[in-house]
Every structure is written in C-alpha cells, then in structure tokens.
C-alpha cells in the first residue's frame, strides 16, 4: 500500500487547502494520512514541528476511534480541541485521511466547518484514484 501523489495531485490538494483558509480565515490547514504521514499543508504553521504534529494527529484519531467502538459507534468523524489562543478542528476525509484546521478568534468553528464542506467533494475526487491505484 503506497500513497503516490503526482505534482498535479499535490497542486490540486494545495488549492483545496488554500480555499479553506481563504474562506474561513483560519491560520493553517493540514491533510494527514491515518498512519501519521503529512500529505500537504498550507498557511502559517510558525514553528510547529509538522511531522510530530501529524504523528500525534493520527494517534489522536486512532485512540478516539477505539473509544467510539467501545461505545458502539462506528467512528467519531470530527474532533475539536479548544485552546486559549488557538483551536484545532479535525475532520475525516474519506477512509484514509484527516483534515486538520488550526484557527484563532478571528473566525468561528461554524465557518471552518462550512469551508471544509465546500471543498470536501473535490478533495475526495482527487484522493480516491490515489487509493484505488493501490489495489
């Protein structure tokens, strides 16, 4: 199982993430594989260690999925962490990816969610052949 993205795929994914940031005024956006690999990111992650951030995001989602199963749910498909200055919103993208948006008080959770919904179909269209290719 390999994830192979062409330059064109990456550009299209970057364009989707940029759209989310432009529509929502969020700080940064990440697309992360469920095994913890960073696929793409945009915005200003400042001094953030994006590799560690991706690994912890996948672990966070993995642990939460197990909690969901214990409760008889198939999955919790979104997570939200509120901080003093910054907040993080995690949302599943298809079966294999997680989108993470970091935002502050210049925007709202509702607007972030709306912005993600607007590009979700397009993002799935880009990603589905990548995973189908793996056979």
């Amino acid at each position, binding site marked *: *199982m*390999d*994830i*192979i*993205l*062409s*330059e064109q*795929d*990456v*550009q299209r994914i970057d364009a989707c993430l940029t759209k989310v940031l432009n529509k929502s005024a969020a700080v940064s956006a990440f697309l992360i*594989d*469920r*095994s*913890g*690999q*960073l*696929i793409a990111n945009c915005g200003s992650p400042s001094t953030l*260690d994006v*590799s*560690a951030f991706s*690994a*912890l995001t*996948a*672990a966070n989602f*993995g*642990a939460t999925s*197990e909690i969901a199963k214990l409760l008889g749910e198939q999955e919790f498909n979104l997570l939200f962490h509120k901080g003093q200055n910054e907040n993080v919103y995690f949302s599943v993208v298809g079966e294999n990816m997680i989108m993470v948006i970091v935002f502050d008080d210049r925007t709202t959770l509702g607007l972030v969610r709306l912005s993600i919904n607007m590009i979700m179909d397009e993002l799935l269209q880009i990603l589905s052949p990548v995973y189908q*290719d793996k056979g």
Partner: protein
Amino acid sequence: MPFINFSKDEIQCKIVYYGCGFCGKTTNLLYIYKKTQDDVRGRMVSIDTDGDRTIFFDFLSLNLGKIRGFDIRVQLYTVPGQVHYDATRKLVLKGVDGVVFVADSLKTQREKNIESLINLAKNLAEKRLSIRTIPLVMQYNKRDLEAEGAEILPVDVLEKDLNSMLKAPNFNASAIKGEGVFETLREISKLVVKDVSKKILLEGKGRSLTGAGGL
C-alpha cells in the same frame, strides 16, 4: 505505506521499533535523537507514564538525505511493550514500512521476547502484512550487561529463538551506550528504501521516478 510526493521529490517511510516491555526501544530513539543534528531531525515526542513506560508511542522524524534526487524522510516509532497495550500497538503499526525487533538479551526475558515476536507476526497479519516479507532487523540489546554480571542469553540462543526462520539481519547492541544503534537504523533504512523502490517499480508507478533519476 510509504508516501511518495513527486511535487517535493520526497519519500516518507514509517519504521516501528517493536519488542517486549523495557527491552530498550525508547532508549534507541533517545540515542538517535541525542546524536543527530537539529537540521536532520524533528523533536522527539513521547507519550509515557510517570514510570517512564511508553503508554502510546515515541516518535522521531529523521531526514536521511537524498537518494537519486529524492529526499528520504523516515518516521521512527516505538510501541508500548506491555502485553495489555495490544490495541495501541496495532494503531502504531498502521502503515508500517519496516520493523526493528528489539530483543532483551537478559535470560529472564527469554519468554517475553518470543511472545512479543509472535504478537508482532499476529498484528502484522491482521494488516495483511507478513513478518517474513516486511523489511525486518533484529537487534539483540543489552549485551553490555554481561560485563556487569547479569545472566544474558548467548547470541546463538537468541538467533535460534527468534531468527531461525526469519533470517533477518541482526545486530548486537547496547542502546544505552549507543552501540549498535546506528548500525540497526542504517540497515532497516536501507531495507525499507530498497523495498519501497522495488514495489514502486513492480507496480509500474516508476515513470516519474525514472524522470528524476530512478531509485
């Protein structure tokens, strides 16, 4: 599950250090972290208990440099060794490209090493991976304890117990002193990169790799 990004000419791979509790998985990563420069590695992330036992995983990202124009980044993970953390081990194994099995050379840990290796084979099989085909390196850790009078297993016993069927490359190590740590890392990285390039070529996805010089 390697991630190949043709936009950045970058390959990311995931290597997991596996083994029973207190065998020295975290010590391996800590040594690598301490001995590498800031510009080739990220920060070391550990989720552990107060007693220094890994509860979820340790994580360290390393840049191994370029191979034929591709930046090779490896992500090193450890798993919690204790038997009851099996669900966590399965989560960490998701998307694994290579495994370092760290065996504890102490005689008292003989059974636990074998149990852990069987557990690894089972958890890989659940992900439709075979312990016989995945890039694997055996590390026989804590060899230094013999000098301190501890009873340790001879290497041929460890080989017979753990590696007689698998025939994986093996290294003696003292992770706490750094002996064998980078040798192990070099070997598993080499095997993983070779495996990734082979798979890509077999799947006929090497068109752009060839354009960039091939792997």
